């Protein structure tokens, strides 16, 4: 008695869910790539969880709150792990439109990924593009902050150097107004001839020998 029913159900199942069926989506998982050694085995329990997640996503759609786990059909599970799934309506005669399923999955993609410890790349829904996370966009770009800091430091340092130079020059000008020129030139210059300095006598620090020169007797008195 139950056998015909069973065959009927499987027949309907096969009719609604097969590769490239209408409103069917292919799913591909790369568990070993994502988890490495901690990879779990894909068995019927995991399939049950998947169907539950899809049913959960559909229940969030306003007109489809009555979706049950049994309405989600899986088929053609391969070793990859990949399979096809469809979502049927409560009467189990037609499948729900692809657009609805697509938008429902997109809305809850994150929850589905997390249930399996995977991400958008390792749990792929072919033909359902994922919404990419927008990059963090602070109100003031970070580079302008750094630029502002460095700019202010450089301006302050330049201003200090320029001002100290001006002050130094002003102090020099104030200190020695007239003699500045001659003093400056003479301080560092040496009159040289043939490599020998012309003034070996240190006349600044030396003494005048009065024995040789007296102002009074410059001219022989009459």
């Amino acid at each position, binding site marked *: 008695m139950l056998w015909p029913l069973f065959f009927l159900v499987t027949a309907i199942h096969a009719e609604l869910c097969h590769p490239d069926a209408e409103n069917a989506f292919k799913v*591909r*998982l*790369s*568990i*070993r*790539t994502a988890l490495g050694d901690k*990879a779990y085995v894909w068995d019927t329990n995991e399939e049950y969880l998947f169907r539950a997640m899809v049913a959960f996503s559909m229940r969030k759609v306003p007109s489809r709150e009555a979706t049950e786990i049994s309405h989600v059909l899986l088929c053609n599970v*391969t*070793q*990859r*792990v*990949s399979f096809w799934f469809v979502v049927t309506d409560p009467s189990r005669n037609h499948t729900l439109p692809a657009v609805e399923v697509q938008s429902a999955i997109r809305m809850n993609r994150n929850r589905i990924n997390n249930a399996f410890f995977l991400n958008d790349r390792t749990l792929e829904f072919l033909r359902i*593009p*994922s*919404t*990419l996370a*927008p*990059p963090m966009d602070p109100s003031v770009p*970070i*580079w302008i902050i*750094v*630029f502002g800091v*460095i*700019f202010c430091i*450089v*301006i302050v*340092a*330049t201003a200090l*150097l*320029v001002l100290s*130079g*001006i002050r130094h*020059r002003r102090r020099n000008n104030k200190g020695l107004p007239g003699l500045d020129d*001659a003093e*400056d*030139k*003479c*301080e*560092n*210059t*040496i*009159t*040289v*001839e*043939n*490599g020998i*300095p*012309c*003034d*070996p006598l*240190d*006349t*600044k620090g030396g003494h005048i020998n009065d024995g040789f020169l007296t102002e009074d007797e410059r001219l022989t008195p009459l």
Partner: protein
Amino acid sequence: MESPAHVASLPEDEELQPWGSPRCPGQHPGRLEGAEYAEPGAREKARPKWGNPMQFLLICVSYAVGLGNVWRFPYLCQMYGGGSFLVPYIIMLIVEGMPLLYLELAVGQRMRQGSIGAWRTISPYLSGVGIASLVVSFLVSVYYNVINTWAVWYLFHSFQDPLPWSVCPLNGNRTGYDEECEKASSTQYFWYRKTLNISPSIQENGNVQWESALCLTLAWLIVYLCILRGTESTGKVVYFTASLPYCVLIIYLVRGLTLHGATNGLVYMFTPKIKELANPKAWINAATQIFFSLGLGCGGLIAFASYNEPSNNCQKHAIIVSIINSSTAIFSCIVTFSIYGFKATFNYENCLNKVILLLTNSFDLEDGFLTASNLEEVKDYLASTYPSKYSEVFPHIRNCSLESELNTAVQGTGLAFIVYTEAIKNMEVSQLWSVLYFFMLLTLGMGSMVGTGTAILTPLTDSKVISSYLPKEAISGLVCLVNCAIGMLFTMEAGNYWFDIFNDYAATLSLLLIVLVETIAVCYVYGLKRFESDLQAMTGHALNWYWKAMWAFVSPVLIVGLFIFYLSDYILTGTLQYQAWDATQGHVVTKDYPPYALAVIGLLVASSTMCIPLVALGTFVKRHFRKK
């Protein structure tokens, strides 16, 4: 031609002072510093000096070691035979680099003036050489600081997570990435679109990019800060700009050698390809690299040496600086190739993974079954078992080859801002490596900029006319302001194309001509024997026959050879072309320069080279009229 005694005379037009001037009663013989050698009755002007000889050495190193060592030498090494390129490089260093460097330092130290005054002292007809050096330095400083602008831009952008050039921005409806970024790569996109915002061709100028303009202003402010006090400030800054790049290079060497796949790059680079030694291009490129890398002919080296003590042993310094310059190039080559190896291995493994994924998905194989080791056998198995399906998939399978990844030789801004950033984004703690790297680029560039700035300022501050009206700070400020204003041209959308024009043509031919005239002037106009006796009296060491032979014969011949090569290269190529970025395809395309760009190129070359004959002619005419 005037008599030698008059020619080699006095700086500017100093009058001959009689013996024992009455105006200066207090002269201290003790104030003679070193073996002061001067012409009879000459009066020496007070000249600023370096704080100690180390500062002189460091500024020469900082000036010579620049971006060319980091981004041009590894490219040449790769193109011309890897390890075997070192042979022509070292030979050219000994035959061309050291003699010419020593010549410039000796001239500067002997004449104790900037480039214009020094050459005017040798012969008034030759002051055009000094003016040509000044013009070339000016042109170089205009475009070189744009590189610092980009380094600053990337440096400031390194303080974010994730690095902005590691991810593509999203497209309009957030379902995928931006189209241009998909076609190219995220690093290329960040360089061409976000940094340069480049236009498709040189004719479309576009607007000034305010972000680049800000960074350019900051770069010029930093340069002004470093040179505004002359040797006083420059001498302190070079301790930093000369040593920091080495610290970063050592850190990168250690990090680079420990990266996965670095040995691939190093083995590739150091396996010598002896055949390349027979290629004349290898020798020519070695010669040009040594020549331009040392900064000869710009007037910078003459300016630095002019602030030296006359007794300074510049021969020793010349040898040290040229050896340091070349060793830095080789050292950064090692670093670059370990990074190349890492990047190539990373890309190769990515390529393999893509092929594995494609096959796994097409044939629904178990995830993790296909690995790099069994890939070939499984491919054969699949080809035999499912021939029809395999032939469908086959066109999409890329041939992954490590060799072809390593073969992509890049130089210049492409190496620094695209290839290196691509490698950095894959390292752990990429922000740290990025900050270190761009800080190193910035200090390398700043070191060269400070040297170029000194090369421009020294003749200007030496000139009596200008320095009597304006103080040193104002002259430097004006120079920086003018350069910054002209540099805004390079921040426009077509700016990078103009940058390439300046980079390729502003300095190349002109410097060769300038150095050629310099060598001939010292050896044949001033007289090699006279110069030799000057140097001996000044430093106390006799001049080795090797330098004399090089200066008199070998170096001029080499430079003439390089000159002929460049000219023939330009003539044979026909129309000059440039690489333009095509946003729709995501790679560069080759285009021809429009006529006005060619005119600008001609103007750039002529503005410096024509100075020499024009000034000589002008001096001749002036003297002719004076005699009348």
